[in-house]
């Protein structure tokens, strides 16, 4: 306050006027720019390949079998502990007897995807999960499979993520480092 006061009548008048002109020029300039608003529900957003959205379980495209072997790695790694898995032992391979995911507490850190040895759990390119009932956010195995079929899956799967973070010893293949954008096909069972 001391500064403008000491400037004198005409200096202050000139300073005020130039401030007015410059500020109004910028707002006037933006008047003719295209609005950046996206009319969301009508016009879908474009999601990048690595989008971390709703979680889903995958089904092997060829055999039609679920990929999850119920190993519970995702349950252990989950920081907010939203995943609960029970293992069902079988002859050839194991299955998840139950698989529940409390989506309302999930923090979408993608650690469960990263640790999955069979690429069974993935993230999808969707965040349309608004609901008026909390219970619908408690996802069981069937819901997770349905979400996986309903929405486009993101690029990240366990094997891809671990390949990308390849340790120095294995000498990362250049395409593994540069591939992300190209290899955006929906994650299938490639375990």
């Amino acid at each position, binding site marked *: *306050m001391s500064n*403008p*006061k000491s400037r004198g*009548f005409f200096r*202050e*008048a000139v300073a*005020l006027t130039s401030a*007015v002109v410059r*500020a*109004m020029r*910028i*707002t*006037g300039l*933006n*008047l003719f*720019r*295209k*609005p*950046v*608003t996206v*009319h969301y529900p009508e016009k879908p957003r474009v999601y990048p390949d690595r989008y971390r959205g709703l979680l889903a379980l995958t089904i092997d495209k060829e055999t039609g079998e679920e990929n999850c072997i119920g190993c519970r790695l995702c349950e252990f790694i989950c920081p907010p502990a939203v995943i609960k898995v029970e293992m069902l032992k079988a002859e050839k391979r194991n299955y998840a007897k139950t698989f529940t995911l409390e989506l309302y507490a999930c923090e979408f850190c993608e650690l469960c995807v990263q640790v999955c040895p069979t690429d069974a759990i993935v993230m999808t390119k969707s965040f349309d999960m608004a609901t008026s009932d909390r219970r619908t956010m408690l996802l069981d195995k069937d819901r997770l499979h349905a979400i996986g079929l309903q929405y486009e899956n993101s690029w990240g799967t366990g094997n891809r993520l671990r390949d990308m973070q390849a340790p120095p010893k294995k000498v990362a293949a250049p395409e593994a480092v540069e591939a992300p954008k190209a290899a955006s096909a929906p994650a299938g069972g490639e375990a």
Partner: protein
Amino acid sequence: MTGTSAMSPLLVALISGGVVLGALTGLLAYVTLLERKFAARMQSRVGPYRVGPHGLLQPIADGVKLLLKEHLVPDAADKGVFNLAPVIFFIPCMLIFASMPFAPGLGVADLNIGVLFFLAVSSMEIVGLFMAGWGSNNKYALISAMRAVNQIISYDLPFVMAALVPVMLAGSMKLSDIATAQQGLWFIAYPVIGQLAFIAFIVAGVAAENRTPFDILEAESELIAGFRVEYSGMKFAFIQLGEYAHVIGTSFLGAALFLGAWAGPGPSWLGPLWFTIKALLVFVLFTWVRWSFLRIKVDQILSISWKLLLPLTLLLLLATAVVIVIRSGAGV
């Protein structure tokens, strides 16, 4: 009131008052939409969009919403004052249109002291405002009311001075006379004096309407919403409507004083339309100023008023007087 001499003057006044009020309410509602759309485009947004095509029904939705809202009265409020304040605030804001001639002969009461009436009535809103601030029994509202008294008193002076320049040039306080005097040359086109007076009018007008950068009494980021923080529902709507009525009234006054009122190309019945368009232009200018600046503090507002604006407008008045003397001397 030419051509309606068959009817009694009271009836004419009632009818025209009703027409003006009705038209005004519609105008006010849609002026809010205009401001919101304009501000949105300045900020790279689209503004109201969902209600009706491109948000055209938004003002109606807003009105209905405010009608249905619950009326909350704070427990410790001074109930009488609290409930009365929006009305007291609203009436002068609407009353300012009484002296406004929308076309030659079309108006409620084209008083011969029209400008003075406008200025006097528009300053009366401070009473309602102070009542609202005091009656709410809220510290934010109280501080806001105190600031309001400071600000409006100090800005009425430069506002009057700026409005006096066209009055002096026209030689009359009657708004229709001022409009007629601008048939040849609008007062804003008067070299130097006209433009400076218009700028001073806009600045003082912005301050008198409590809009950014002079909205210290509303000041959402400090005083939340100042004097209206406790109001809800229709009482809030009254305050809001009153504010917009004041802004639009000032815009009409600006158009009448500086932009030649109803003068414009085309037949004379287009006059009211031209007048409204000019008033909306002034309104858009107010809006543009509002959405371009940061708010300044109360002491700075006062110092701008007393140290900058008042001397400037006084000088302007002096210059106008000199011009008038020279012109009349040349005429004689």
